[in-house]
């Protein structure tokens, strides 16, 4: 019927990425929403800092954090919750009976949405920096890329793990995603340095890859960020690499277990729960 397991899964990734890519082309209204609208939240928080005569770095953190929210929201809504939506549409069972890894489907979703997410993040960064005169200094581009990639892989690994839970969920999937948006913005220090939450809270929040990713990126981009840092860049990179491995393994086993649970209880294909 087809080539081996690796080729089959690579084709599956390509196949699932395709609707996202072509959807972005055929429904171009996303451009406006993804580029312009996130700027409002960034602007609001930046003006708060400006009104309080805060340090310039803090405004920079808001712009950076605002850009990174694109990835968090993509993980939460366009990946984690996606299996729930696929179930409601009737696609999930077709994915389940196909001879491919569930992670391939999720990877395809992630890659397919990466273009619009990157446009969102990049435009927020660029326009935010322009409006609020934020200067980004890149001292070590290789380290920057390493930090960013490690954060993304760990983050999307975590997203895949969440997706396994969403396979079984009913309408609580939407609410759970809603519930995780603001608390993660708070706990991960999207708009303020996470160390101000206290050492224990920051340590706990470090299990969310974007916490340390943001902290490291701040140190890379802003010269005055060292005083706001939770851990050093090198330590944060190491932890992120560890999280990559942990979450990808957890995602694999979680997907397998949740699928088994769904099949045992009959909830895998149960709609409108």
């Amino acid at each position, binding site marked *: *019927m*087809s*080539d081996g397991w690796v*080729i*089959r*899964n690579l*084709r*599956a990734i*390509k*196949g*699932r990425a*395709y*609707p996202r890519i*072509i*959807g972005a082309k*055929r*429904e171009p209204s996303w451009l406006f929403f993804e580029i312009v609208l996130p700027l409002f939240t960034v602007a609001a928080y930046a003006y708060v800092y400006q009104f309080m005569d805060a340090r310039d770095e803090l405004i920079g953190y808001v712009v950076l954090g605002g850009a990174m929210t694109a990835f968090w929201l993509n993980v939460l809504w366009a990946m984690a919750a996606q299996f729930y939506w696929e179930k409601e*549409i*009737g*696609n999930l*069972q*077709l*994915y*389940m*009976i*196909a*001879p*491919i890894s569930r992670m391939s*489907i999720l990877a395809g979703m992630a890659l397919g949405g990466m273009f619009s997410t990157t446009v969102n993040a990049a435009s927020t960064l660029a326009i935010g920096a322009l409006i609020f005169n934020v200067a980004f200094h890149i001292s070590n581009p290789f380290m920057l890329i390493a930090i960013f990639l490690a954060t993304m892989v760990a983050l999307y690994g975590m997203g895949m793990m969440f997706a396994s839970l969403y396979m079984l969920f009913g309408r609580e999937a939407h609410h759970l995603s809603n519930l995780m948006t603001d608390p993660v913005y708070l706990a991960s220090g999207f708009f303020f340095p996470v160390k101000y939450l206290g050492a224990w809270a920051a340590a706990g929040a470090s299990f969310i890859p974007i916490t340390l990713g943001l902290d490291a990126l701040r140190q890379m981009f802003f010269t005055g960020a060292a005083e706001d840092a939770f851990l050093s860049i090198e330590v944060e990179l190491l932890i992120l690499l560890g999280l990559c491995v942990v979450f990808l393994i957890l995602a694999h086993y979680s997907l397998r277990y949740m699928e*088994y649970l769904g*099949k*045992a*209880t*009959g909830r*895998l*294909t149960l709609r409108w729960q």
Partner: protein
Amino acid sequence: MNHEPAVKVESLTRVFEPKKKKEGKSVRALDSVDLQIEQGELFGILGPNGAGKTTLLKILSTLLLPTSGKAYIAGFDVESQFNDVRQKINMVSGGEVSGYGLLTVKENLWMFSQFYGIKSKVALQRIDDMLKDFGLSDKKDAKVRTLSTGQRQKMNIIRGFITDPDIIFLDEPTLGLDVNASRVIRDFILQWLKDHPTKTVVLTTHYMVEADELCDRIAIIDNGKILACDTPERLKRRVQMNTTLSMDVTLLKDTTVFRTFEGVESFTFTEDGEKGLTKLRFVMRGESGVSDIISAVLGQGSRIESLQKTEPTLEDVFIKMVGKGLE
């Protein structure tokens, strides 16, 4: 494919437990089902709503685990060897709305083919050929959301067959389709089996004519149990000893009396208020009870508008086995 049966089911049981007590009792959707389907068969599963047909198909297609018992697809256990099973199968359901509305028909079909690792060139050729078979070539570049129900279901059928499965499960594939669309799908299935003699089709349907026309063998299922499993001809011969009597009479006051008549195996009735008729249909052991039936009808002051004795059909077999018509 090897010489294993395409499908083998041993004492398969599936019980659904409610999430909360107040949601009711547990439901025994399948009850010790035994079945064997050979390679190359077009096997039909007939049963009323809630009989367990879809549950059986979900277990066989690895979407659901059995509570007890075993099921094998081409020798692979659906529970522990599901990855191997999935390489052999595909499934199409009636009324499916899968896929993505803003993709074209071709793109949608190509996308699903990629989940089975089929090379794009091969997939696109198959898509073109099958769209031609189904008369959908002009819809190749149409968005899925613009398709009519019949066109959509044809696309779904193509999605199922495009992966060239060894065994394909069709769960009421012609549900809600008009005569022409149903005809095209049935003809395709028959031709496909003719061209691929080692492939197997497992079909559930409500349409007796469809089952009668298409299936090599049929299993009749109700309340999770297989009541009979045989070729259509041999199933009909089971009721050969019986007479089927169809009567149209003016509206009857009391239809319950017929149940107690000797010689009546089973009967169904429908009321046509518009025409003021009650349509009675009896499966009888011999013809001795016919006069009692006629007397009972006339005794209630009704008139006999028509009276017909017919040969047993699959529907008669079904009524005899299940005790009611298909809902």
